[in-house]
């Protein structure tokens, strides 16, 4: 019994020292800062909407919302969306991370069941407003609205207003819905819009 006890004490002291020594190895800490520009995280800096007139395929153009420094102090540049009245456009949206130089559209498509786009014109149904709507959204794997591709219809009236683009994101443990109030917001931008 005594020998076991002696051994035990030795084992204990030995293990304690060993545990301390082995744990206190050199810790992975860099002694130089890494580049403050690159972050291991996407920052959407540019949103482009490409439009093609369904009646005239040669008539295609794009509008760009560009905030090159991401969350930085610089103000974004925003194009005006100029649409013809009484027209149907085929449209698709493209998202770009200019800080990490990466196109995000394909990735969003792959993760369609975590994302949903919403498009709104304001003001509508007024004589001077932008009477237009979107439809025919593409679907995710589960056959729910995704909205990377869509159709844009303008009424015969002309007017001024804005076109709002929202991208909603549903994280782990959240269920995707098509309700624009649900999810958390990845993109919320507005293009000044005129229908002539």
């Amino acid at each position, binding site marked *: 019994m005594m020998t076991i006890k002696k051994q035990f004490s030795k084992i204990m002291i030995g293990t304690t020292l060993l545990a301390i020594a082995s744990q206190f190895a050199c*810790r992975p*800490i860099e002694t130089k*800062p*890494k580049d403050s520009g690159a972050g291991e995280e996407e920052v959407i800096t540019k949103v482009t909407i490409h439009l093609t007139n369904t009646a005239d395929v040669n008539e295609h153009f794009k509008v760009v919302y560009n905030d090159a420094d991401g969350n*930085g102090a610089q103000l974004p540049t925003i194009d005006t969306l100029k649409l013809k009245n009484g027209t149907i456009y085929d449209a698709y949206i493209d998202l770009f991370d200019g800080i990490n130089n990466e196109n995000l559209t394909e990735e969003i498509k792959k993760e369609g069941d975590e994302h949903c786009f919403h498009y709104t014109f304001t003001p509508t149904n007024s004589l001077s407003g932008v009477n237009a709507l979107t439809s025919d959204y593409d679907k995710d794997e589960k056959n729910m609205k995704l909205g990377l591709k869509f159709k844009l219809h303008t009424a015969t009236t002309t007017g001024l207003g804005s076109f709002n683009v929202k991208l909603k994101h549903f994280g782990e443990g959240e269920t995707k819905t098509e309700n624009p109030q649900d999810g958390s917001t990845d993109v919320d931008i507005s293009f000044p819009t005129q229908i002539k």
Partner: protein
Amino acid sequence: MKKILVHFFAIQIAFAQNPKGGDCDFSINGKVFEAEKNIEFEAVAVFLKELNLHVNTDEKGNFIFRNLCKGDYTIEVSYLGYKNLSINYRLQKSIDDKIFLHSDTCSLPSVTIKGEKENEIASLCYISLTTKEINQNNGQNLGEMLRILPGVDVLNTGTNISKPMIHGMSGNRIASYSMGVRQEGQQWGAEHAPEIDPFLAGKISVIKGAASVRYGSDAMAGVILVDGAEARSNFGVGAKLNSAFFTNNRMNASALQLEGRHKILKNLAWRVNGTFRKGGNYQTPSYYVGNTGLEENNFAAQLFYEYKKLKLELLYSQFNTTIGVMKGSHFGNIDDLRQIISEGGTRSQSDFSYEIARPYQKVFHEMLRLKASWTTDLGSLTFISATQYNDRAELDAHKPINQEWRNKPQLQYKLFTFTNDLVFEHKKINKFHGSIGIATIYQLNNWDGRLLIPFYQNYNGGIFAIEKYHLGKLEFETGLRYDFKYFEAQFNNNQIFEKKPYIFQNLSAIVGVNYYLNEHFVLKNNFGRAWRAPNANELFSNGLHHGTASLEYGNPNLKAESGYKFISSLEYKTEKVKFEINAFAHRIENYIYLKPANSTRQLINGAFPEFNYTQTHAFFYGTDGNVMLKPIKNWEFNARYTFVNAYDIKSNGYLVYIPPYNANIEVLRNLNFWESKNISNAYISMRWLWVNEQTRVEANSDYMPPPAAYQLLNAQIGSDFKWNKHQLNISFQARNILNTTYRSYMNRLRYFADEPGRDFILRVNYSI
């Protein structure tokens, strides 16, 4: 490490089943009484001369030396302010003895009244959790354990992140010392809790008052001290197992401690600790709250060595925690936040689960510490050298789309800290008593993921002296400290390195007067100046803070904060009545806070309000106290309260996140009719808690008005059991018995979910 712990435990059980025999199985069992009052005397130092063993008496005045061989022994019993006693024993069989200590009439009145070791700053208010309070609150994090003390509140982020607050201040306006070492994690963040395992502690206390003189910068409002237990003094191996089971979040928190000392290396003792905590989603009175689980695994090993007047202690400790951040509390922009609030908390609802999903925090903290103390005729010299490494990772709700980054944190900080402290406490010369010391800190912080806190290096040096002088019933105290801090942040913009150096120098000081009216009454007054340098986030924040959907901008021209705190406390202590009332006033020059810019900025993901780090002058004042009454035999009443007020002097407005007025009353009945040889300290108690609505807030300054006042009812029953060498303490607690639905102003996630409903807790503490 878990493997090793299991292995240890198996061996321990083998010993327990094989009691030793032979001539070395005797013990000296003693009980020390205070002779004048005939009461049990706690924390008396008992020294077994022949074996050079030191122990302290427990709450009941008991001490024991086990596994002694036949022979002659001398025991010395000493306590500051009492006459030393030397007793000789000739050991033929185990001995039980009663020892009476008589007060030394020329002694310091403070010592006879306090019945404790003298505090380093005598005029400040020290308050500790008692062994009973620790046992009654086991299994919770440090902040939740401390909050039962008057003057202490917590700032919560959900239910698992609790930042302790002293007199309305937390984070970098208080200092935390764990095992004698200044705890250096990432205290600046409101959602960063101290990486300290309370299971490791032998004693947990709080100092209320500006204590920068002794504890360095940041100790403006107070200090949290988590001290380790002394080395095991007698031979053999001991084990302690503490377990707590919570029904609300189905949490199990267990800690195992093994310690030992052996005759062949009689100057060497060891101790290992392992802690495990795992809980799932918590439950409000009507639903489970998603992603609120936690998992924590801690480990510590200690070696103690004594040689004549030299004592060495080597400690390694490791803290690992993964904490889920409430589902629905991470959102895109300010419109999302308004939408979630308008839904009333439905987004956080979930089923029960132990699973932790995004968003979550993963924090690792380790410490290696050497402590050497050397007692001479002139005084005692203590040297503490420690390295700490802190690795904090935060994973956002939003998983990166890029596959390469998928499982990487969006924010990561790695902080390395090296501290050295040398303190000399001189013995009483004439009527002077005090200490001098130097303290140095080196730090290196690096980041990964998103840039929030830059890379920096930090060099600190401080030198201090504190002296006390006794004159009759008065005790005067003064202290002075000088600190120098060189802080250098470094940025890398496309391989162009830019350094931003800062130098801060400051004086801290205290002046104190204690008046010992008689053996029951003491009045303490302390005036202290303390300071802190601005944090890296206050200087350099630049951009989006996801947890609050705000844009925060640092100010590189911030000056250091300096504060003047006056605290006065009246203490009264008799057997039937005990109270301690504090009042304080605290002015802070250049108080740093986040000021709303009253504008929003349009980012690609929506509108965000802007905030700038700004300085003002702040004024805090308040009072707190506790009262204990034992009017009738076996009945005990305890009442505690904390009232804190805080103002921004420049704008004549209120400061945010100041705890609302709160108080609690406990009624306790000793169940002494159950007491027997094996059962002691049986009790049943009921506690009523009241927290007022925080009415001192600026109108329309928040997304939601402060929650209403609330009252909670808790109850507890417990007892100690003892047979042979086995000691068992079992208690059963019911919290929020009435299943009250409430929200707390001091919870940063109060917008999203209610606080926990009813919770039953079973606690079992076993030791041998």
